[in-house]
């Protein structure tokens, strides 16, 4: 433990300090603070008590008022209050009466208005009844009209039915007549066929017996070619080689007959008259050939086409163009049945078409 003057001095000073500053005031301050707290609590208590007191006083005065106040006084007060209430009621009633009077007036006005509208509506109703009556009369009229029209309609319908029946009977007749007609036509065709046969027989007969050197060309364009006639021609040529000079009766025109009769050498007749003339191709026509069976002419042209022409009527009709050649067609020919046609062209090829459907069947090239 360090000692010395300075320590003693410090201790002494501290002790005196504490005595002076702390001990002197400790008790007083503690007492003061206790008093302070006491005062505070008492203040609070006092406040609460005052409040309580106030409340009690208030309630007591109320009870005093309600209990002991003079009865007469009270009654007077009650009566006054009643009077007041009555007066208020009265004024309110007055007010209500005024309101109701106002209402009555307005209602009266409304009644007037309603009456007016009622009258207007009466007028409208009467007008409407008149209108209805007139419309009824019209309806009556129309109904009668309709009845008449229905009667008429019935009559017309009856007539129509009668006519229908007549029509059907007439149609039946027509059908019968047509049947008859058809049978007659058939018969006619038969007769015609017989006639044609007979004619052919006659022709054969004639050809056999005719001058074989004669070369007949019908000016009407009809040349009868056929197997029979081919045979006939051969026979005729044979006969011509034999040199028989006699000829009997021409089947052609009378001019030729005369010439044949008078001149006893071979005659060649040049066509003198153009029967038909048409432009077959765009360019030269290189080949012409008759069909062996039908009256059809085939032509081959430089426009690389083979064309078929129908000559059965007085005018020429085109039956079609057979295409496929790559160069101008130089020659055409039919087969013996007339179903196929062959064309030779400048492109080193020959082609075969069918006449019926005009289609290319064979195309061959020969080098």
């Amino acid at each position: 433990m360090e000692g010395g003057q300075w320590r003693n001095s410090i201790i002494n000073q501290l002790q005196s300090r504490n005595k002076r500053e702390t001990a002197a005031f400790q008790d007083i301050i503690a007492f003061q603070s206790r008093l302070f707290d006491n005062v505070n609590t008492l203040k609070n208590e006092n406040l609460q008590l005052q409040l309580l007191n106030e409340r009690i006083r208030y309630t007591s005065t109320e009870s005093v008022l309600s209990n002991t106040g003079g009865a007469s006084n009270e009654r007077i007060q009650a009566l006054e209050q009643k009077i007041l209430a009555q007066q208020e009621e009265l004024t309110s009633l007055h007010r209500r009466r005024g309101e109701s009077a106002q209402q009555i007036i307005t209602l009266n006005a409304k009644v007037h208005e309603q009456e007016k509208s009622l009258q207007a509506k009466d007028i409208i109703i009467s007008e409407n009844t008149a209108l209805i009556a007139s419309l009824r009369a019209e309806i009556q009229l129309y109904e009668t009209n309709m009845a008449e029209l229905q009667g008429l309609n019935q009559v017309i319908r009856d007539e129509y039915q009668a006519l229908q029946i007549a029509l059907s009977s007439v149609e039946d007749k027509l059908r019968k007549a047509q049947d008859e007609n058809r049978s007659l036509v058939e018969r006619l065709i038969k007769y015609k066929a017989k006639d044609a046969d007979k004619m052919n027989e006659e022709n054969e007969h004639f050809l056999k017996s005719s001058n074989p050197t004669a070369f007949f060309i019908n000016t009407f364009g009809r040349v009868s070619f056929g197997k029979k006639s081919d045979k006939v021609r051969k026979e005729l040529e044979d006969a011509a080689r034999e040199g028989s000079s006699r000829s009997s009766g021409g089947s052609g025109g009378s001019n030729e007959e005369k010439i044949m009769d008078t001149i006893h050498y071979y005659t060649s007749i040049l066509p003198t008259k153009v029967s038909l003339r048409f432009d077959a191709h765009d360019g030269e026509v290189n080949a012409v050939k008759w069909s062996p069976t039908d009256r059809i002419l085939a032509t081959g042209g430089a426009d690389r086409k083979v064309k078929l022409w129908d000559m059965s009527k007085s005018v020429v009709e085109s039956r079609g163009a057979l295409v496929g050649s790559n160069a101008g067609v130089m020659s055409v020919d039919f087969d013996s049945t007339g179903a196929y046609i062959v064309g030779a062209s400048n492109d080193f090829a020959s082609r075969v078409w069918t006449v019926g459907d005009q289609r290319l069947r064979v195309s061959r090239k020969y080098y």
Partner: protein
Amino acid sequence: MANDREVLREIWDGKLPICFQLDQEEIMEIQQPDPFYVMVPRLSYFPLVTDKMKRHFLRYISQENADSEMWLDYNGQPLKWHYPIGFLYDLYCGSDSQLPWTLTVHFTKFPETILLRCPNKDVVEAHFMSTIKEADVLKHRGQVMSTMQKKDHNQLWLGLQNDKFDQFWAINRRLMESHGENEGFKHVPIRVYSDDGTCNQRLVSPKNNDGSRKVLQQLISELFPDKIEVKLRTHGIMIPPDTPLQWLSEHMSYPDNFLHLCVC
């Protein structure tokens, strides 16, 4: 070695009677509020002891100022809450002591330029702990505080707050021990204040260059070379000039471990 319990106890028991009065301008009631008397420990701080006083005066001020922060002044001088109460008393009325100490309470016109804001007691605790740490850095290079646990720090603070001598010194004595091979602190945490409140803090070694103990007189001559007669006051007493600094620091420091000395 802080083992002079007698001195420590005397210092700890020092209390001041204080009379709080509400500022006249702020009274909003017809009735004048009574002044509030209380004994406060010299070592404590104002925010720790003024709760009851504040409640008392709140009844007398206008409601709109009730939430604003309270502050104190003595003769128009605002009091800084982060200094110990006893030190403030020594600073402002050490020479002509007049007890009880009368302070004025304010709720408006907070002097922002002079005082720090103190919204709650956590701020006081933070300031207190930071001052202890600063002192420990000066004494032991901060080794003692950093080895303490959180609960030790709490015990220091609670001991001060609840005015428990044993609780506080059980921890604080570790801070007052000297460490290392040589006796004594590295430096003495010391603050010397002039009359006008300006603070003077220097690195002060407890020993002279030749290794002998430094006494207060030598410190005074170092700090005030041009003045001859300078006396220093702390805890309300004059310190004898031949007191060794080491002993002074160990026994007469405030709880924040600093020696707060006033020139007089």
